[in-house]
């Protein structure tokens, strides 16, 4: 009997029908559990220590961003998008501005496209470094004594934030993209700073990887845990590293190129493991690939303008056409960040009529009821950490 995961596990299981050996216990994990990456509550139904049903409750960080998007003009939206996924603001800005540019038919100069590619890959590194630190922290005192790997990954993330600061003046909420290109041009010495930062990281990455993969406790806690089989991963709409760890070779950077990805080669990491360890492997491989892409591009940024439109002076400078709607998606560190944009809203079309954000983390969270069943309570944090959710993006 080899049932598909979808048929084997019922996320809406009626607990009255369960014939448990011991008494069932309901256990709330979160909303303020340190390993829930923000505020997420998962209600676990346990038979002994084995999970038989898991019900996640998102929404604690819901800020009504989609409603807000209907009241702010396109120019005002970029800083709002910084705050969705507060671990990868750069790619979030890009997702918004690409959606606006495609709806308006605005071309982006080649220099700006190269800069955006470099920024996206640096952001991927920063985001994955934070994930690596918190993931190994979640797994507990197994990696070199508690939090030490997290200290190292935060040390590596700092120079990346420093180069962002050199370019934009902000360490986090950058607001550096606009419709038609970028706001800030590359300052003197930036390429050298980026190269130094990449050299340091490239030299140290194998060390961090080795710390994990040679640790038998790490392997025991990740291999075979939190399996999401390929058909289920597709049905759930998992994207990015989570989907590629379930054996699907899909990466929008290569398959539906945006920025300058059509001019460079992207090697996509895929694993057939489908488990927590496969998601770890894919992200680690992506980090090496991002270092390679940044090093390849940083010396080849073409000269020219960085924005094809005149600089922003008023908030309602950009008007969206009425009656047009479209879906646009880019690959962020977490997967496919899509926007469904309908033009012709308030302020004579300067605001979107409707802007639906398709957050990759929300789809990853929806996998929890399937991935957790049959495992123990201690595996919850490992599986959750491996899916790399950011609750700001899940709840919006």
């Amino acid at each position, binding site marked *: 009997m080899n049932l598909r995961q979808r048929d084997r596990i019922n996320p809406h299981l009626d607990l009255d029908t369960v014939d448990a050996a011991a008494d069932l216990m309901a256990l709330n994990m979160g909303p303020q559990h340190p390993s829930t990456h923000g505020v997420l509550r998962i209600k676990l139904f346990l038979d002994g220590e084995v999970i038989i049903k898991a019900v996640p409750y998102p929404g604690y960080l819901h800020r009504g961003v989609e*409603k807000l998007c209907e009241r702010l003009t396109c120019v005002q939206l970029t800083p709002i998008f910084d705050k969705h996924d507060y671990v990868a603001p750069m790619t979030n800005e890009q997702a918004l501005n690409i959606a606006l540019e495609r709806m308006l038919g605005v071309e982006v100069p080649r220099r700006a496209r190269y800069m955006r590619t470099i920024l996206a890959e640096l952001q991927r590194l920063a985001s994955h470094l934070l994930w690596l630190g918190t993931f190994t922290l979640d797994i507990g005192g197994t990696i070199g004594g508690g939090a030490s790997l997290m200290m190292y990954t935060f040390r590596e993330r700092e120079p990346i934030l420093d180069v962002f600061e050199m370019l934009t003046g902000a360490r986090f909420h950058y607001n550096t993209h606009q419709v038609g290109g970028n706001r800030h041009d590359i300052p003197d010495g930036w390429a050298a700073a980026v190269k130094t930062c990449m050299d340091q990281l490239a030299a140290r990455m194998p060390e961090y990887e080795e710390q994990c993969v040679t640790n038998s406790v790490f392997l025991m806690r990740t291999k075979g845990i939190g399996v999401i089989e390929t058909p289920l991963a597709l049905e759930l709409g998992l994207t990015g590293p989570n989907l590629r760890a379930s054996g*699907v070779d899909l990466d929008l950077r290569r398959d539906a190129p945006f920025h300058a990805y059509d001019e460079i080669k992207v090697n996509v990491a895929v694993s057939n493991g489908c488990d927590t360890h496969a998601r770890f492997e894919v992200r680690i491989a992506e980090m090496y690939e991002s270092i390679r892409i940044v090093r390849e591009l940083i010396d080849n940024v073409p000269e020219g303008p960085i924005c094809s439109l005149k600089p922003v002076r008023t908030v309602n400078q950009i008007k969206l056409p009425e009656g*047009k709607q479209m*879906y646009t998606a880019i690959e962020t560190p977490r997967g496919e960040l899509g926007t469904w944009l309908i033009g012709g809203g308030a302020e004579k079309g300067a605001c979107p009529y409707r802007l639906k954000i*398709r957050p990759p983390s929300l*789809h990853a969270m*929806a996998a929890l009821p399937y991935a957790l069943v049959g495992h123990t309570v201690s595996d919850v944090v490992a599986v959750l950490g491996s899916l790399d959710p950011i609750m700001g993006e899940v709840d919006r």
Partner: protein
Amino acid sequence: MMGPVDPALREALAKQFPDVFAAEGDLDPNGVVVPAALHVALAKTLKESFGFTLYVSVIATNFPTAEGETYEVATVLRNPTTAQPFWWRVRLGADPQLATLYPLFAGADWQEREQFDLVGVNFVDHPDMRRLMLSEDWEGFPLRKSYAIDTPHTPWR
């Protein structure tokens, strides 16, 4: 733009859904409008015969008109082999009801709950049609155009 749709797919869809996909002319770049009765059948055909197995999103939108409230539900799927997305729209009246895609796509569970929560479109036969983001005693549907952005919400009702 929806982008070029594979001619073989276009032809097969025209054969199966002759009223919706005309054999000639460009498809509506905003997304083909499909009658609500064909919503599930179209999703099933796309998933099982054309490889659109990746569930991307569902988007409900409120359009107030002179005749009354109307709603549109757009569904986006993607073919993971070609990376080609495909989307269509369903128009609904003042009492928005649409069949769920949950039996076909497990991801529709939460996505449809979110659209129910924020826009108030009811997905029929969904196993668990509760609010996803807002608290269960929330009044109204915030993404409807009639819901003022400064509507007070007091937690001690």
